[in-house]
């Protein structure tokens, strides 16, 4: 049994292992991603881990031209916009994520409802290697 706390840190560690792990309330069955310690449906605090398949569809998005400093450092900006969005997973919960494999320069052609699949991208942050969850068509 997984004894990890239902925290953001545990969630990030699961991404490092190539898994999308969330919580399921033992009392009412509500799913949460990232995991929650307190169920917002029934206020229960007994949770179990559940792995999400990483398949879903795009429910909303934006293609960002004016990038914040931490994205500009990666080369994003006016000439190289990037897309982020809200993805609804097959299990019924939503995640916010980078969307890759779409033409961020032509956002008017990106369609809400597009089927998406999770991918894990390794990113260096100082001495640390972090895994970022992204979705692509």
């Amino acid at each position, binding site marked *: 049994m997984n004894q990890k706390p239902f925290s953001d840190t545990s969630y990030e560690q699961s991404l490092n292992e190539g898994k999308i792990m969330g919580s399921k309330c033992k009392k009412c069955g509500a799913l949460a991603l990232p995991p929650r310690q307190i169920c917002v449906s029934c206020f229960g605090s007994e949770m179990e881990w559940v792995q999400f398949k990483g398949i879903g569809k795009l429910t909303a998005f*934006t293609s960002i031209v*004016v990038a914040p400093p931490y*994205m500009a450092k990666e080369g994003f900006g006016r000439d190289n916009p*990037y897309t982020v969005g*809200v993805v609804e997973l097959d299990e019924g919960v*939503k995640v*916010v994520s980078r969307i890759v494999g779409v033409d961020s320069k032509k956002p008017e052609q990106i369609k809400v409802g597009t089927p998406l699949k999770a991918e894990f991208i390794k990113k260096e942050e100082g001495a640390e290697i972090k895994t970022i969850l992204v979705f692509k068509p």
Partner: protein
Amino acid sequence: MARKVKLSRGVAVVGGGLTKLGLFKDRNCKDFFAEAFVEMVGSIDKGFDPKDIDAVYIGNYSNDFFVNQSHWGPIISDLLGHVPKPVTRTEAACASSALAFREGVLAIASGLYDIILVGGFEQMSKRTTEEVAEGLAMASSPYEVAAGFTFPGVFGTMATAYFAKYDADREALFNVTIKSHNNAPLNPKAQFPMSIRDFMSVRIERSRKKGEPLPEWKDEKEFLRDPVANPPVAWPMHLFDCCPISDGASCILLVSEEIAKNFTDDPIYLAGMGQGSGYSLHAKKDLTTYEATRAAAKEAYEMAGLTPKDIQFSEVHDCFSIAEIVHIEDLGFFKPGEGHKAVAEGLTRLDGPIPINTSGGLKTKGHPVGATGIAQLYEVWVQLRGKAGKRQVPNQDLRIGAAQNLGGTGGTSTFIILERR
């Protein structure tokens, strides 16, 4: 036990002040607040002695970041000669001063105080645009920032959800922008007191001076569709969908209802107020609504014993054009999905049945985030007193106005209804 919906004691607004909004690098928040305060003192018809203020509540989002100074309570207390009486700072991102107003009202309603100064301020001009964007992003959820969302990006995301659900497009946003900019030249305190046509003329004149070919636009919408004139920020948000970076301060004097007539023969009374909280993007059930605004509106309507139909005009939080459309639906002025049609039909114009953002809104008036909540209420107060000059709502029986203030990307929202009796 059912929660009380009425306050134990009524509260009135008897004075207000608002600085001219804009970018003022050579001044600071003490200067701004003093300017707003002096105007407020002068606005109190029967005069007023500032030493009678029992307590002060001030909203400020992040001068800690913007000017490297926190603990603004005592700075303002010192400025006003209010020491050693209490001053409390409230923070809820862009709704910081609406919370100051609400806390001030609750303090009077509790019976503890009779005369309270509420206000707000922010200085954003000392930072670069990129730094301001970073500072504002601190008010969105940690998950959004980690994924690379910016503030305009979160609102852009809501816009794509709205477009998909209600079959709308950027045209809906243009209508909001054009409407707000038509009100702007009528507001002497606006940061950009210009219509979209005025912007078009400025661009043409600039090209003429440079000897470049003159740009031609058939109308305002063609100008807004032009990616050179109106460049993208975060799809579908473009430059003219976004409020500017601003400095400024606002304040209002609140007194208990029973002493209101000592200050003016024309007090404006608090009819109802509400405050709500909201989820970040991924946890929202519906990306085309603000649950915080709906909760705030429900609470305010119940307290006031009013319905959306009773509201004759309203300021709403239009930090980005899409937010105005969503808010006029969440506040019940229009049904879900009908907001963009209402704007297109001109129903929210100054001369329409429910004028929205008579001040020009955050988009044109400016958005010094901590000052905004009370700046909106200042506009409602001015309108209800019939002192809005050229932008006065043309209604002979103007009695009920409201203001809605959003914090962050929807995490906090307030709705406050004022009335003239």
